[in-house]
């Protein structure tokens, strides 16, 4: 199974949202990282056949997705970043409606909808109107609809937004179990989610793919650029103004700062192991 993107470009007016991007995805979970406006959502919409590219090609198992049309879309699951619902629908009715337009037979749809509602913890409220749901419940319902047709390509745009820590753990387990023999592409600002479940990380900036690799590989690209130092409160304020500080914690009368910098910020600073959050801040400091 292979999803190949070749020289993909999407212009909004003259602004390139996706700029000559090439990428090949095989089975596994891919985490897409990037600041707002990096082109993540546009890339996902292009993969989901919602937008037409200005140039370039996307192929699934060697066949162009635009030629495959509904055959491709029937193996696709998509959760948009910003989605709504029809207010008269209950959770079960919503899933059955989505199943109908995904082309699933009625019998299978009902069985699958109930199974997924159970897996996302919404089975006890399956007959309740969606308008009475909390943000987290709606998000879980959105995740369930994306998985209805047992998709081989699952695209999730900010799936963990609005989920509490317990729900995020449940989501991570769900995706991990689901992703065997499938391509899962997810974007999120919650870096730890990607760190836990993604086998590969894609870093996007200005519509281009900056880095692609396993989390540990990518993190090592900023080795020697993450520092910690213990300073007084006054010094801490000055350093926050002048440096890219990823974390600070009070320790007695002093403050321990975690600084991302190409050079040693202070003589007393010591190098530490970078993590994915540091990597995110290293590349997207100006947008963060």
């Amino acid at each position, binding site marked *: 199974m292979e999803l190949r993107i070749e020289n993909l470009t999407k212009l909004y007016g003259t602004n390139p949202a996706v700029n000559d991007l090439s990428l090949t995805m095989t089975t596994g979970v891919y985490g897409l990282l990037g600041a*707002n406006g990096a082109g993540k959502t546009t890339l996902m*919409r292009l993969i989901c056949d919602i*937008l037409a590219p200005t140039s370039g090609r996307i192929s699934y198992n060697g066949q162009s997705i635009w030629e495959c049309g*509904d055959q491709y879309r029937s193996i696709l699951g998509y959760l*948009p970043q*910003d989605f709504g619902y*029809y207010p008269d629908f209950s959770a079960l009715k919503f899933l059955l409606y989505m199943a109908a337009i995904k082309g699933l037979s009625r019998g299978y749809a009902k069985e699958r909808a109930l199974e997924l509602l159970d897996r996302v913890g919404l089975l006890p409220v399956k007959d309740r109107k969606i308008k009475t749901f909390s943000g987290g419940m709606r998000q879980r319902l959105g995740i369930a609809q994306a998985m209805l047709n047992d998709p081989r390509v699952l695209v999730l745009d900010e799936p963990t937004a609005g989920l509490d820590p317990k729900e995020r753990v449940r989501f991570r387990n769900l995706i991990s179990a689901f992703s065997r023999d499938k391509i899962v592409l997810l974007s999120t600002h919650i870096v730890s989610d990607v760190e836990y479940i993604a086998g590969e990380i894609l870093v996007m900036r200005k519509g281009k793919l900056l880095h692609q690799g396993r989390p540990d590989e990518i993190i090592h690209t900023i080795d020697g650029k993450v520092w910690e130092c213990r300073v007084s409160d006054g010094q801490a304020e000055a350093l926050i103004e002048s440096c890219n500080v990823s974390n600070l914690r009070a320790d007695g009368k002093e403050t321990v700062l975690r600084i991302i910098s190409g050079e040693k910020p202070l003589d007393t600073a010591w190098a530490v192991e970078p993590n994915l959050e540091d990597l995110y801040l290293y590349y997207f400091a100006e947008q963060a």
Partner: protein
Amino acid sequence: MRKREREMWKDVGKILLQNIPPDTEREERKKETLARLGRDVRNMDYRDVPSFPKLVLTQLSYFSHRMWLVQVCVPVFLFLLDYQSGYLHKAAYTICLVPGLALPFFRELYRVYSHNMWEMEAACRYNLPRLLLFRLCILSGVDLIVLSCSLAVFCRRGGVLWEYALYVLLPFFLTAAFCLLILRHFGNGGEAVGLTAACLMPLGMISLTRFPLPETVSEWIQGAVLAATLASLLLLLRNAYRLCSTQYYEIYRKEPVSWN
């Protein structure tokens, strides 16, 4: 066994015949053949393909209860008005029927955008243009029933076809055609324009009805009205076709984008 299943097994048979039998001696060749077989079977389109009417019916739940209520209330109101007063209120047909049909027509088609469901639906097997086609089929069916009933009442009260065309059909077809054009060109960003059109067009026609028609209208004018109505119907059908054959719609970005 169902017809679809029989076809599926026939396809599996064809695939097996096309592939050479696995070489049991050489493990590598055997694995290769089995992998190829597996791939071919996976690529088979074995999904159930419902008939067109069944697909159209899947969209019944899409429509709001309010739409059905309006579609029933408008002709009932007209019928009661005429029946009570014993006089044919031609202007009332324009005032009630045109916005009564055009506003729900646009609102219901636009519902997928106003409830922010368009992106989710566009990525489904039956994507947005096809779903719009199914919805248009239902709306057209309902409108046809309402228009036929009101035409029957109109004629029973002494009205004639060309007048009905002038007061109801022409403004309705033009408004609906314009709404479809808006939907195709503006996608998720055209609600305000479409709703304004759906309101302004009937208002324009209402102001026309304030000028009473002469006692006798020449056949030439009657013919011209019918021809204009037919032309507006063709325009509506053309716009509907173009809406349902457009693969991608304009996306108006709500979120401010910080270009890095």
